[in-house]
């Protein structure tokens, strides 16, 4: 340390599933947040570790990687951070190795050593190694690498204090001469500040050298381990193999998989229900109090801003939180036990046929709760093209914000006729809407992946199937907190901003209060004459062919805050006051609405299904657009997706309406 004030920066690297996050948690405690590297979209966290010398160091948990070198389409985050190309260069690196699988783990370590940075090595999972009867060569590694090597059991906090103490003793690993004479001779004359940079420069000129380099590294490891890593490690996997025989069974595996996913769905939609109702009630109560007491203080307009803009906006975000947290919790659990990799293994084949892979499964599954965490979850897909593909189709999965819209329209217009005894028509329509979204997503993926195929690149699925492990509750909960906070920040700010903007569009210009109008009628008048109302009127000619009038147009505009706002907005347009999807008044108002020109019912069968078709495909969600822009790092992509899906929705609605109208369902 040169100056007392300069905080030391430590990088934490390791293969996936070595217990790196658990160790990170043990070292930093709860003081952690999502690390922000400009342009980095993979998950990285940072926190601070108290050093023995008294000060603290910043520890950055870099994404798990098998090699520093990014393969063709992956992000080069780990390498760039460690070379100091994204912010300050770390002062030292903590390398986490899985003691049950040293050979493969040491490969990354040998690459990191070539960076010339001081290292400390943590040998994690020594408990598992011992249980399996593996003799962990801690002393040999310490001697041959010349750096501190500390045995740890991260889940139990064992060895963490020793590791913390060792951080001050980080040393570079002498690697000179390790790559064989020929390569070393050329390396000596190559440009670059460290061996790694010189290697990269050499290989940029002559890519053939890489195979030689990789083989040399493994030869170095074999020598380092004295043949030890070669022993049969099957014993360490005996328990895992017994479980896999069931969970990856050709028939049993998919059945268990469906059951697990069913459970996740069930949890998201039924367990969250009561909490969500509670939250809605709480915000309603808050709004009620504000409406009662604020007018004296802020006037009518100020009250409306607080009640409809602020409280409504915050409520729209918070109401999703229970679902999102349950989703994140279950996903964290499935990840840490090792089941997620099995799920990817099982669904890879079907997803492959549309250009996706098993790794896209989780983002798509998450999108059934909300596309925002779904898009965020694509960070775990290392392959850039596939990640973009998953981001592209995620918003087509039916998110829970669409449900109130579906529920309102189906309950009001689809009779609950029994079908084939066990089903009823309402349920079947809902199922159809889900399936339409999935089919649309798969089709879009299929078409988009054709473009890529033409450029001739295969998506290699290489997933590690780690041993099953008991997750640590602390780890799962910390991950939940960090991800939940990230969600609130990303989605919350946008939803809130859009809500306030929409409040403005619907509240201005102000209309004078007319005598003889009820409160609800006055609100309807205000909306009709507002900017939003005028926009709805302006859009009407374009919406006519879909069977919509300006009122539906306003509802669609309002959906950009979050789709379920459609329902409340319909309540205002139709002068029924406060309304949710279960409001009988609103259903009746929709049923009775007639087109002033033709006198026909506005919500006829053709319009209702056209509207449903529109909601299946349209990307009406400011938060999704914002998060897509961030994750895809491209406004062009985000806006292209927004307008592309709006067009898709328009065409689907147009086709639906015109077909049904031609069949006589528009009366």
């Amino acid at each position: 340390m040169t100056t007392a004030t300069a905080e030391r920066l430590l990088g934490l690297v390791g293969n996936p599933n070595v217990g790196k996050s658990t160790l990170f948690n043990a070292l930093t405690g709860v003081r952690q947040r999502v690390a922000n590297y400009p342009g980095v979209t993979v998950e990285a966290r940072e926190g601070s570790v108290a050093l023995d010398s008294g000060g603290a160091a910043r520890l950055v948990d870099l994404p798990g990687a098998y090699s520093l070198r990014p393969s063709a389409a992956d992000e080069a985050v780990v390498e760039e951070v460690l070379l100091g190309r994204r912010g300050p260069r770390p002062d030292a690196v903590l390398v986490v190795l899985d003691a049950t699988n040293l050979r493969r783990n040491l490969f990354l370590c040998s690459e990191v050593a070539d960076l010339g940075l001081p290292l400390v090595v943590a040998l994690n999972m020594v408990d598992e190694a011992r249980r399996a009867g593996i003799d962990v060569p801690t002393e040999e590694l310490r001697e041959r690498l010349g750096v501190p090597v500390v045995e740890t059991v991260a889940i139990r906090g064992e060895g963490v204090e020793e590791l913390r103490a060792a951080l001050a003793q980080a040393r570079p690993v002498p690697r000179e001469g390790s790559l064989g004479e020929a390569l070393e001779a050329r390396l000596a004359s190559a440009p670059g500040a460290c061996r790694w940079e010189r290697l990269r420069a050499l290989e940029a000129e002559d890519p053939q050298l890489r195979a030689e380099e990789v083989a040399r590294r493994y030869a170095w490891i074999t020598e380092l381990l004295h043949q030890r890593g070669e022993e049969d490690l099957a014993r360490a996997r005996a328990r895992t193999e017994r479980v896999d025989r069931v969970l990856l069974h050709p028939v049993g595996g998919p059945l268990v998989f469906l059951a697990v996913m069913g459970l996740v769905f069930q949890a998201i939609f039924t367990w969250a229900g009561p909490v969500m109702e509670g939250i809605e009630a709480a915000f309603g109560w808050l709004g009620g109090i504000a409406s009662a007491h604020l007018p004296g203080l802020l006037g009518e307009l100020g009250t409306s801003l607080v009640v409809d803009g602020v409280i409504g906006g915050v409520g729209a975000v918070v109401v999703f939180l229970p679902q999102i947290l349950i989703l994140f919790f279950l996903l964290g659990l499935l990840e840490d036990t090792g089941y997620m990799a099995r799920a990817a293994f099982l669904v890879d084949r079907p997803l492959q046929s549309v250009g996706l892979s098993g790794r896209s499964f989780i983002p798509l599954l998450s999108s059934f709760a909300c596309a925002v965490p779904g898009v965020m979850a694509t960070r775990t897909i290392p392959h850039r093209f596939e990640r973009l593909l998953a981001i592209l189709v995620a918003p087509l999965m039916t998110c829970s914000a669409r449900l109130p819209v579906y529920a309102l329209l189906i309950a009001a217009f689809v009779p609950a006729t029994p079908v084939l005894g066990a089903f009823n028509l309402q349920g079947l329509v809902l199922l159809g809407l889900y399936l339409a979204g999935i089919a649309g997503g798969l089709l879009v993926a299929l078409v988009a992946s054709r473009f890529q195929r033409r450029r001739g690149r295969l998506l290699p699925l290489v997933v590690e199937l780690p041993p099953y492990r008991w997750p640590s509750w602390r780890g799962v909960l910390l991950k939940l907190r960090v991800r939940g906070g990230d969600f609130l920040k990303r989605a919350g700010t946008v939803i809130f901003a859009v809500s306030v903007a929409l409040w403005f569009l619907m509240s201005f210009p102000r209309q004078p209060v007319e005598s003889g109008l009820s409160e609800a009628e006055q609100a309807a008048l205000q909306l009709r004459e507002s900017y939003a109302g005028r926009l709805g009127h302006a859009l009407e000619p374009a919406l006519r062919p879909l069977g919509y009038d300006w009122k539906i147009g306003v509802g669609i505009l309002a959906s950009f805050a979050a789709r379920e706002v459609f329902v409340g907005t319909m309540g205002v347009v139709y002068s029924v006051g406060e309304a949710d999807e279960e409001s009988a008044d609103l259903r009746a108002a929709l049923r009775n609405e007639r087109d002033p020109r033709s006198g026909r019912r506005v919500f006829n069968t053709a319009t209702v299904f056209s509207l449903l078709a529109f909601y299946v495909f349209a990307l009406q969600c400011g938060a999704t657009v914002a998060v897509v822009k961030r994750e895809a790092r491209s406004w062009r992509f985000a806006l292209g997706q927004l307008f592309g899906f709006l067009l898709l929705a328009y065409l689907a609605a147009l086709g639906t309406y015109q077909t049904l109208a031609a069949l006589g369902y528009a009366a």
Partner: protein
Amino acid sequence: MTTSLANLAAGRCARVHSFSPGAECALNLMELGLVPGARLTVVRKAPLGGPLQVDVTGAHLALRRNVAATVIVEPLAP
């Protein structure tokens, strides 16, 4: 006698021999331990042309069939 990894039946052991020319992910696979000379075991194959589960000195990897087809191996006696 060599064959491709995709042709090995579940339960068979083999040694990595080489990669078919032009194999795009050969280097990625080598980094994961599939270097020439390394011993591997096919643990199972997912049904309907799904991925292979391969044990490479203790680490279990899932490889797609088209990727496995680029790995040339020498089968070892069972």
